[in-house]
């Protein structure tokens, strides 16, 4: 029976033996469910165990305890053809051109070599394809890594900080690319520090700290950890609007920039407009308040340590 989750991790533990010192616990009882389809963000500060978890998923590291299943299989070699991955900085043969590197990988993965040009095009590396990888910039190596991932035409992409070293245009390209891949029905699992990027493209996230998962679920839900939903309301008669809304059961406060912060469920937008309109207050702006993932992240990961 195949599970609906693309990745399932249960009570995963990994400790590394260190010379002359106590063991280092990198992952400490992690449970994770990554639904198939969509972009899943895997967040956490440096050293929180993201890369180690990814290495466990890909069979590079043997878990001390617990289990990982990828595309319904606990034995990674069975599904390797369907999983494209980047672990930390992608490594290639410096002496070979980008194209030659991809051709070699295509040969290893028994993927038609005709795909190489297409993926180089897709990551915008066609021009530099025949230069030696040694001469590539960090961002270009990162793109080549993405190209290698796409070469497999994978169902699941496991990407460890794919945006590392990309310029703003590159970031946007990767963002769009990942979004497109998810829209094609693939599952994208990315670890990242770039919370703004993650917030822009991820459907769900998990936040790691010290080897444990401290929050996971759809992005909106995780964001609600910080006081639930609220709207930003701007209107001509702000003081009056505030008392009207508070009386109507929507606690409101001044934000200090000629607008109100109105605590209400997402679905309440229409009712807020109506409530104010009935009192002849016509609002000029109504938008959900953005809670940044960064704020949540710092709050959550801050008080654990």
């Amino acid at each position, binding site marked *: 029976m195949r599970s609906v989750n693309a990745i399932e991790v249960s009570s995963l533990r990994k400790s*590394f033996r260190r010379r002359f010192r106590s063991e280092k616990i990198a992952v400490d009882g992690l449970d994770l469910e990554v639904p198939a389809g969509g972009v899943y963000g895997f967040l956490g500060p440096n050293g929180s165990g993201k890369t*180690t978890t990814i*290495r466990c998923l*890909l*069979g*590079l*590291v*043997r878990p001390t305890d617990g289990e990982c299943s990828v595309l319904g299989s606990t034995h*990674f*070699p069975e599904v*390797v053809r369907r999983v494209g*991955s980047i*672990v*930390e*900085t*992608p*490594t*290639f*043969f*410096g*002496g*070979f051109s980008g194209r030659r590197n991809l051709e*070699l*990988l295509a*040969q*290893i*993965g*028994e993927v038609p070599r005709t795909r190489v040009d297409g993926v180089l095009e897709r990551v915008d590396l066609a021009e530099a394809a025949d230069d030696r990888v040694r001469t590539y910039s960090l961002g270009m190596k990162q793109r080549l890594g993405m190209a*290698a991932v796409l070469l497999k035409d994978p169902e699941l992409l496991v990407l460890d900080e794919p945006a590392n070293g990309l310029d703003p245009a590159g970031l946007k390209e990767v963002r769009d690319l990942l979004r497109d891949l998810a829209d094609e029905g693939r599952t994208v699992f990315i670890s990242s520090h770039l919370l703004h990027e993650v917030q822009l493209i991820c459907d769900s996230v998990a936040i790691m700290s010290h080897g444990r998962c401290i929050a996971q679920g759809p992005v909106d839900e995780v964001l609600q950890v910080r006081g639930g939903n609220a709207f930003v309301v701007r209107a001509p008669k702000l003081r009056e609007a505030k008392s009207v809304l508070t009386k109507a059961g929507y606690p409101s406060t001044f934000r200090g920039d000629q607008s109100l912060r109105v605590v209400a469920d997402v679905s309440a937008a229409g009712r807020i407009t109506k409530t104010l309109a009935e009192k002849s207050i016509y609002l000029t702006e109504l938008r959900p308040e953005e809670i940044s993932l960064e704020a949540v992240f710092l709050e959550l990961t801050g008080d654990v340590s």
Partner: protein
Amino acid sequence: MTGLLLAEARRFLSRRSFRVIGVLAVVAVIGAGVLVFVESSKSLSASLPQAKQMVTECHQAIGSGPTARIRNGGLTVRDVASCPTIRQAEILFDKRFHYTDTTKSTTQNVAFPLFFLAFAIAASFVGAEWATGMMTTTLTWEPRRGRVLLAKVIPALLILGAAVIVLFAFMAVVFIPIGVFRGITTGMTASFWGHLAGLWLRAALIAMFGASLGIGLATLARNTVAALGIGFVFVAILDPIFSHLWRGRFGPWLLMQNLQRAMRMPIEHVVGHAAFGNQVTMTVQSATRPAILLSIYAVGLLAAAYATFRARDVT
């Protein structure tokens, strides 16, 4: 698996260490050929002056030197020592290039440096992959580690073995004009060629053995330098020490002696009993035992390397 094998073979062939050493080996053969060509001469009579001088000096030393008058149990020195004839002395200073002998002995001797080169090239083939982190990339494309290791071993062994044969064949060809113009080519019979080809094959197998050791050690150490260091300490220090301990009893189990036997080289063999004074003779011994023993060593090391590779984390 075929794809992986082919990819690894391509990687191996384009490695700089392999190419540079290959070119240097070809240059060395040509350079040595030119030197030998210049140093050799077509006829035996080239050594006549030296031979004459030697014989004259010898006669002077025996006939008129102070030693002639030494009496020793009623014998003169002339009775126990004799000087070579000019003909004999000529052979001693022979400057002719003896194609068959030289080609054969050079093949035997060059097999050893090639063993070390194969060891080093193969060790760096694996060690470099660990050093660059390329092993992670490879394993995300082929996670079955047995296959990954085999795909290193098979191309490295086949390519290095073939390279050794090609190099020796090239050397045999380079030597032909030297034999023809600056020496003698007698003895180039079918049986000679068979014998020579046998030596090439042995040298190729020895290089393959070296490559197995290199890959095995580099897989265990995950590092080229460490693998080379272990290999060096063993061959340059431990092997010679052990081979002289306990009247050479460890010799038959050590690398160097087995490699020499495999190349049909005579090895030291102690006969007799210590009480009567050991006699050391040089004998050529069968290569069956070394072949089996070295194969066991190579397979054993590779099996240990596989077991470790399989069990250890790749981080």
